[in-house]
């Protein structure tokens, strides 16, 4: 059944059971959030998404309040703005403001909302204890002093990956995200998929492999398909100055049909072989057991001459080709065409059996 309500003076019709946040967004309102994630269970904890229903005593968190027939909602009333500013000030009170060196600079919800509501500093000065902890794993950096306790990482770990490696430890001022017994990630069920980094709304979680190479907000992002297993996950190569400097993912099923942004440790953190100094950069010809650099013309002419010699001396079936499960369809097509049409043999295979 559909219900009707008024949001910022605009009438909207939504199915019964719709949460206010979705109704508000349908009406074109820009609702700020930290803990809300459309793919994860509702937490209703950050209070950033509060809105004001007319005639109600309190503001309500729109992400966990079902829309009701006849409701009249204001999404940017003075009360709402004041409440959101207080939420931001409370977060700033325990947030290390090092935006200039932060990986999330430019795509950080806290930064964006403070800008939006003109919150420059926090009134709530008091004891600030650093929860700094060095975790020696080579993949995931967790900076507790930037955490806003939205628990999206906890829910992504449970609800997307199912690793259940982390949860909230302690309460109140001392609350923090930790593995059981507050140990290192490597000793927990963590599989270093980095889904926690994907959902983090601030700079509390980031990639150690990409650190310092380019802020994701400033990188060009090229959507492509992963080079590792056969699942066919979509990922975004982050590019800066014609160099791959990181991997992020797109969660839209229209662009990431298989994985919806989820990746594994190889997809998210196994990309820097691309920049390895050991990459081959020029053709090589072996002479007296040693390789020497050669021009393309020299290498290809010599290769063609050797292949022709064998074909003429022993027949086309004395040659064989191993094509590759790592190159593209177009390249595999040409490879087998070369073997069949140019050389004249069906001796072409690849590592499908290995």
């Amino acid at each position, binding site marked *: 059944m559909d219900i009707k309500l008024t949001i910022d003076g605009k009438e909207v019709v939504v199915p019964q059971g719709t949460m206010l946040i979705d109704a508000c967004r349908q009406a074109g309102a820009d609702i700020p959030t930290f803990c809300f994630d459309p793919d994860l269970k509702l937490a209703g904890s950050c209070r950033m998404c509060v809105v004001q229903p007319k005639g109600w005593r309190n503001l309500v968190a729109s992400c966990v309040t079902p829309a009701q027939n006849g409701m009249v909602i204001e999404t940017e009333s003075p009360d709402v703005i004041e409440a959101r500013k207080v939420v931001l000030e409370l977060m700033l009170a325990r947030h290390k403001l090092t935006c200039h060196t932060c990986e999330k600079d430019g795509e950080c919800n806290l930064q964006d909302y403070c800008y939006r509501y003109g919150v420059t500093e926090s009134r709530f000065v008091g004891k600030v204890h650093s929860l700094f902890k060095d975790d020696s794993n080579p993949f995931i950096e967790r900076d507790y002093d930037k955490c806003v306790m939205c628990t999206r990482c906890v829910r992504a770990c449970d609800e997307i990956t199912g690793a259940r490696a982390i949860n909230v430890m302690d309460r109140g001022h001392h609350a923090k995200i930790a593995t059981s017994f507050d140990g290192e990630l490597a000793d927990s069920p963590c599989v270093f998929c980095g889904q926690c980094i994907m959902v983090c709304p601030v700079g509390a979680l980031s990639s150690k492999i990409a650190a310092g190479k380019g802020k994701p907000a400033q990188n060009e992002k090229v959507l492509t398909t992963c080079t590792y297993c056969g699942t066919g996950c979509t990922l975004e190569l982050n590019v800066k100055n014609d160099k791959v400097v990181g991997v992020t993912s797109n969660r839209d099923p229209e662009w990431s049909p298989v994985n919806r942004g989820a990746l594994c440790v190889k997809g998210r953190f196994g990309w820097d072989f691309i920049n*390895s100094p050991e990459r081959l950069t020029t053709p090589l010809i072996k002479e007296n057991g040693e390789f020497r650099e050669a021009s393309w013309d020299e290498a290809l002419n010599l290769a063609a001459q050797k292949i022709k010699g064998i074909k003429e001396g022993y027949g086309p079936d004395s040659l064989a080709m191993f094509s590759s499960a790592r190159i593209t369809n177009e390249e595999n097509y*040409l490879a087998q065409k070369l073997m069949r049409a140019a050389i004249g043999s069906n001796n072409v295979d*690849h590592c499908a059996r290995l």
Partner: protein
Amino acid sequence: MTNSINELENDSKCIFLIGTNTTENHPVIGYKIRQNVLKNGAKLIVADPRRIELAELADVYLPFQPGTDVALFNGMMNVIINEGLADREFIENRTEGYEAMAEVVAKYTPEVVAEICGVDAEDIRKAARLYAESEAAAVCYAMGLTQHSTGTDNVKSCCNLALLTGNLGKPGAGVNPLRGQNNVQGACDMGALPVVFTAYQAVTNDEARAKFEKAWGVELSGSNGLTLTKAINKAHEGEIKGMIVIGENPMVSDPDLHHVEEALDRLDFLLVQDIFLTETAKKADIVLPGVSFAEKDGTFTNTERRVQRVRKAISNIGDARQDWEIICDLSTRLGYPMSYNSPEEIFEEIRTLTPSYAGMTYARLEGKGLPWPCPTEDHPGTPILHKEKFNRGLGLFHAIEYIEPAELPDDEYPIILSTGRSLYHYHTGTMTRKATGLHEFMPENVIQIHTALAQAKGIVDGEVVRVSTRRGSIDLKAEVIDGIREDVIFTYFHFAEAAANQLTNSDVLDPVAGIPEYKVSAARIEKI
């Protein structure tokens, strides 16, 4: 896969994993299976000699002996037939060969099979009932099922089970091989196989050959070529004189590396095209630098047959060239000119010769890609195969007897060595061992050994031990665990300096597929 990946999260009511350590080798598919079990209560059956991560969530876990897959399938089918759980209507309308299959299966009672596989008869019954009574049951397998001397029989048995219960052609069901390399499906589709052109059109079929001869303007050979494993053997015998290797590393990935090395050394000419100087490239006479996935445009086809775009993010490194340009240039110098302006232009040619890709264009592939078959430009692609009928019409049951693995343990080599991959590395490690984080996290190989076997041998966790088979020995750090059968040891094949494939067998191949028996080698483990 006959079905699609996301069905494993949303539609399957029961998932039977055999020979796939999904969370390590296809992690994102592993997440989806786990979520289906945890959120929707899907039933899970795991058959694996190692207690893999997903075994912890399984309703039935069958730690069966490597190489006894056919017996296990026959045992489950025996229960299904005897307890009246078979899908009679499906068998009647969509299959043939049931009687012959049922006759063989009748001998494989749960008690007989329990003896062969080393598992409880009651667990076989439980697994059979869970699978057969579920509204939609999917079987997923990987190389754990196929890398056996009876690999083809194992896969056929898997199909028998699905046919017997009507688990084909509907959402959440199917026979689902999880393919291990990002474009292994595409390489097969494109005819990088010795017996077929694109879309599995046989080279021995006169009509198919005539079609390609016309398109390519040249006469083509009608005799089947050599598989990779056979080509290595023929090189060893001196019949293959020259090889072109593109983005492959047989010096780490192929069975019995000593034999591979001798074979490559006997070649008159070896050409390698790769992005790194791999162990194989080091053996080459000429090495040509290609480019990685980050530097190229094109398409990959994943394990669910979905063709997706690969997009160029950065320029070629150094003087390296696009792999397609290298192939064209070499072909032209061989006297068969090839000239294209872009990968898209090559794809357009592929479409005209490949019925299952005929309806695809780069524009159509832009967002979600398309699963083949996609025969026309208005066809939406096919996420689920065999809905109305099978390619051959009726689904064919195969009557398959259990055959023991070719290499069995004896007094000298009393345990079974099995090999596979880790979550943290990929295939021969050419890429992952040069990825800084992955290399730091897992810098070296280990051998997994059960606590009881370790105690009997006086081996402690972390100790370097010697593992030997009839091919050779390697020294590896012992990882003493409980999650493996006591008569099985397991190692990874990513590490050239401690290469598992020095131990594996190149003499024994599946007679149909030519796949090596990687999951079963008779072995010995000892203190140094």
